[in-house]
């Protein structure tokens, strides 16, 4: 059976906005910048996605969720393709998405900067990450690695709350 020709790319994009990131349940896969493109070729829907981190275990789940959503919407002919042409960056996240992260308790990523001095200890670069709970700037990096590949651990010295920071990459 062919895809209903009435289904437009815009509709597909809106369906995809209903697929949430399993690791960050306040954002959907479009807001995350995971969905790179939607094409319709010969009545087949092609969704191009790109992984956030190479080892992100959620990618598999995300692909399955996208397929499930398309099927739910009555689309039978589709392909989900992983595309590596451009490397995912947190700069693709919209301000709206960043605000949602903050409200959820995760400090959002800042704009990426050139990382020529990437060997310098992050403790020494002293990047200030405001606490998502009390907005204090008195925070410390506790660990560059957190519960998922995309987050690091911080601690707020003001409200004594540990929190996660979405790393800039």
């Amino acid at each position: 059976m062919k895809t209903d020709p009435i289904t437009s790319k815009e509709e597909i994009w809106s369906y995809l906005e209903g697929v949430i990131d399993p690791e960050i349940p306040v954002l959907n896969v479009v807001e995350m910048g995971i969905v790179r493109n939607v094409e319709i070729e010969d009545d087949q829907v092609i969704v191009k996605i790109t992984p956030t981190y190479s080892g992100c275990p959620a990618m598999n789940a995300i692909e399955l969720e996208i397929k499930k959503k398309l099927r739910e919407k009555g689309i039978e002919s589709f392909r989900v393709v992983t595309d590596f042409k451009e490397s995912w960056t947190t700069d693709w996240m919209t301000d709206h998405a960043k605000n949602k992260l903050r409200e959820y308790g995760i400090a959002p990523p800042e704009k990426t900067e050139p990382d020529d001095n990437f060997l310098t200890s992050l403790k020494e670069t002293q990047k200030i990450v405001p606490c998502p709970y009390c907005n204090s700037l008195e925070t410390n990096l506790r660990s560059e690695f957190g519960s998922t590949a995309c987050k690091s651990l911080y601690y707020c010295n003001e409200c004594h709350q540990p929190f996660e920071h979405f790393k800039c990459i």
Partner: protein
Amino acid sequence: RQDALTEVLLRLADDRLIHGHRLSEWTGHGPELEEDLALANVALDMIGHAASLYSYAAELEGKEDEDFYAYFRDDIEFKNIAMVELPRGDFAFTIARQFLFSAFSYHLYKYLIEIVDDEQLKGMLQKHFKEIKYHLRHSREWVLRLGDGTEESHLRIQNAFDEIWMYTGEMFDQDETDRAAIKHHFFVDVSSFKKEWDKLVSETLEEATLTVPDDDQYMYSGSRQGRHTEHLGHLLAQMQFLRRSYPDAEWK
């Protein structure tokens, strides 16, 4: 031409899968919670790098998917260097190895991205490169801390470098496969950045109050051609067992 590309993909991927597996053995055994998470994160990245490279190779060779390369090849078919298959040892050994390998990967990727004549591989390398940078930072910081730490930590990391050194030569070995890949612009002449690697390693070790082992010693070689240490077979037995015994097993 396609064979040359597939070989490059498998060599890059095998190093990363096997190293990633060794790092994953620390999960739940890290010296502290943060470090446990860090090693698991780095392991995941490396296995992810391998998975993307394998899936591209599978596409080129008409295999079903990347799992074929990970689960259904025997030790002599793996093309990784011996350094990454050595047992994980203590924490110092794990860090020393990861530092040496990440420093190598950093330089390799830096130059390879510039010249690689394949868009898909280039895209993957650019993605991996971002992650290799923080792998290198992380392991380098630990080398400094352990080397310039307590008497015990200094001794352990010095021993680790001394023990691993004979396996570092293989990173810079070259054979016909490399030369064919270089000709097609799928790979770089690794000897071209040996000096830079030496410099980064020796500067880090000096800062860590450690002694750089002597290059003028017996160097292990032949792993890329399938002549592995006994350790790889044991690793594969564990890694491949489930998939081979229950080939149709699925997550439900």
